[in-house]
């Protein structure tokens, strides 16, 4: 196991084209589930210059105005009076209405445990979940910091503190580890776009970002940038506008940002744009839930849960736990504890997290909000898979 290394994770603001697409895809999922919790929906999105492409297959009695959903997302993000904006962009929808599969028209809340056993995935996948004690929400510190910086950049724009900023931005944080512990900030890059190429001057922008973003973000962080930390702010010069008019985007291209910043393994399939009956989406939540509880219970300093599913079998065909030598008890024992205390069946995951009804009970959508700034280790949303409520069970286990 490597001990001393630098790990860099990236995050983007909600105005980044890839994230814009993820949010549109998930806003469509939200809209369907709000009106019909049994809806099946796969929504994929791409954006380039002034055209948004949405390809969707769905089986639902709900009727959804796809372009309107997309335009609302684009407006909310802040593309209002830009070259690319919610009013004037063209939206191409490729829609396929499917007949619902009778097997999926169940109501998990009314199912018995035996019924849940019969709901099986239709995909063969291996899914990972991870947690470590490097940050308050138990995600790796590079992605934790990258998200925090990206959020702060966006906040400064929305609060009109740095009103000259445009919605598109990226942040990267490289953390130096010693003995597998975050030791110092090695380097950091912030790219933010501005509405006007000439305003402000690069020097002003760099000062503003340093004070309003970097200093504020690291105020209560245990590991802070030092004199040696390499800090780059718009290293390529001013970025005018950014967003889809400059670079294109697609759903599912920011997997590392959605998960753990490449610190642990992650499955290659996208999370956004899929209804909760897709095992490749919801198993990632269940795996995280288990991993987080293992770390919260103090059984290990870091924990990766690996779940493998096969078509037609409700339970994972394999559950693996990897603690990279940080476990207080052997990995096999942790595996047994996890198997005993967690429900990894497709129907069980949907039921325990209430995944099909969350959009209708959450204000302003659920999956859309989840689609930016990571789907794990959030502080701004009450996510069912972020609870540490099973750690006591594991401790006593």
């Amino acid at each position, binding site marked *: 196991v490597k001990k001393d290394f630098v790990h860099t994770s990236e995050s983007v603001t909600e105005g980044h084209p890839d994230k814009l697409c993820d949010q549109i895809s998930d806003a469509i999922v939200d809209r369907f589930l709000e*009106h019909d919790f049994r809806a099946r929906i796969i929504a994929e999105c791409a954006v380039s*210059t*002034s*055209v948004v492409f949405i*390809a969707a*297959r769905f089986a639902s009695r709900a*009727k*959804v*105005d*796809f*372009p*309107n959903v997309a*335009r609302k997302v684009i407006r909310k993000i802040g593309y209002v009076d830009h070259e690319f904006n919610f*009013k*004037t*962009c*063209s*939206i*191409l*929808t*490729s*829609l*396929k*209405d499917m007949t619902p599969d009778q097997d999926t028209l169940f109501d998990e809340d009314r199912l018995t445990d035996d019924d849940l056993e019969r709901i099986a995935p239709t995909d063969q996948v291996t899914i990972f979940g991870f947690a470590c004690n490097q940050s308050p929400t138990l995600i790796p510190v590079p992605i934790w910091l990258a998200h925090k910086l990206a959020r702060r950049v966006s906040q400064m724009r929305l609060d009109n503190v740095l009103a000259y900023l445009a919605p598109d931005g990226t942040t990267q944080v490289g953390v130096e580890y010693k003995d597998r512990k975050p030791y110092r900030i090695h380097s950091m890059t912030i790219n933010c776009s501005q509405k006007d190429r000439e305003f402000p001057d690069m020097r002003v922008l760099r000062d503003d970002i340093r004070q309003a973003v970097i200093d504020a973000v690291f105020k209560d962080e245990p590991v802070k940038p030092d004199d040696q930390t390499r800090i780059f702010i718009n290293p390529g010069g001013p970025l005018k506008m950014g967003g889809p008019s400059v670079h294109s985007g697609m759903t599912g291209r920011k997997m590392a940002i959605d998960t753990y910043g490449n610190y642990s393994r992650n499955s290659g399939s996208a999370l956004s744009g899929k209804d909760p009956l897709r095992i490749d989406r919801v198993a990632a939540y269940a795996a995280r839930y288990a991993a987080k509880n293992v770390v919260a219970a103090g059984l290990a300093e870091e924990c990766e849960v690996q779940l493998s599913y096969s078509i037609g079998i409700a339970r994972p065909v394999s559950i693996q736990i990897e603690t990279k030598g940080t476990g207080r008890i052997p990995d096999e024992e942790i595996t047994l504890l996890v198997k005993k205390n967690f429900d990894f069946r497709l129907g069980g995951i949907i039921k325990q997290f209430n995944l099909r009804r969350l959009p209708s009970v959450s204000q*302003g959508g659920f999956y859309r909000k989840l689609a930016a700034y990571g789907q794990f280790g959030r502080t701004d949303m009450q996510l069912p898979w972020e609870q540490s409520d099973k750690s006591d069970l594991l401790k006593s286990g």
Partner: protein
Amino acid sequence: MNTLHHWGEAARINAFKGTPQEVLAMCEAQLRDGARMPLTEDDRDTIEAENERMAGDALRVLGVAYSIQGREEESNNGNGLTWLGLIGMADPIRDRVKESIAAFHKAGLETVMITGDQSPTAYAVGQELNLSNGKPLEILDSSHLNQTDPSVIKALSKQVHVFARVSPSHKLQIVQALQTSGKVVAMTGDGINDGPALKAADIGVAMGRTGTDVAREVADVVLEGDDLETLIIAVRDGRTIYENIRKALHYLLATNFSEILVMFVAAAFGLGYPLNAIQLLWINLLSDIFPGLALALEEPDPDVLNKPPRDPYEPIVRSEDFGRIAFEGGAISAASLAAYGYGIARYGMGPQAGTIAFQSLTIGQILHAFSCRSENRSLFTSQKMPPNNYLNLAVFGSLGLQALAQLVPGLRSLLGIAQITALDAAVIGGAAVAPLLINELTKPSAPGEGDET
């Protein structure tokens, strides 16, 4: 759109209608049970959901709102309106339009709908009509097409089935985009603002009954009964006329080539001139006019509406057709020359041998008209062509005239024909029918025909 009306003594009411989302965005209050109430986010959500539901039922939905203002005030451009409600209007799809669309698809014509309606309405209508022919329905939703790069519209126009929320002024842009992507565009329209697009389209089709004068004037085609089905008939007839011209042309080229070949080969091999000038004139009079005209009056091929349209850049006689024409003409010539050879062997060079060649060639040519009825179907294929009585009349009439030429002494001497024996007649018969059989047996079958069982 908004209008101003008097409202009591000192005020005016500003009435708005339009796309529900756009009108809703201008509202800050709503009228409910006669009282003006705030419009919450939840209310907006409910209204939007209701709009989606109505539009999903293929209704055309409008939002309405108003504001009260002083008499002297300028019309405000729509801030702080009071929401009144949604209006859903059914604009039922006319009878048989669905069938017409299916017929268009079968005939290889793609259909595109341009509408000012919002996407869900357009989706419902597009599904109902099966505009996408079973594939995912692609809808381009854009109220600002003019701000999209023309090359992007060109690329998109190739796959889009529905253009939604399009303002009439963008129809021209869409037609031009389709044209630059290499398509031949026919557009139907009836409004004044359809004029430019109807004019730009390769075939502008105006509705005769509901259409405006402008639309009718610029259109190439006016549908008298406003019935799309008529277009299918027009397409069928148009394709048939073109095919018939090709058949006639094919026939004329093949038969005339056979004459040239007979004269040329005989002369080249020192066999004299089988036909004299008056016989050649007679052949042209007989074979070219009546069967050629009758071929131009063929009934539509039963398959004419199951085939894709022809490539507009394709010449009327394709290069592979020339090969086929040469082969058919060659077969007729070879048979006539063989008969001529028999005549020379039996009677020596002279009018007797020439008569045998003349009769073989003329009858062979007249019978060739049957072969030219179809490029792919021969006398031996199971699927028969619809009968063409004009052709039967022309062929048997011409054969009758040819018989008269042989039998009437005055005509015979005019044409320089000798009398023939029964054996000569049998040889002539064989030489006339053989090329027909050869040409029918070697006819290429239609692409894909072999797959059918």
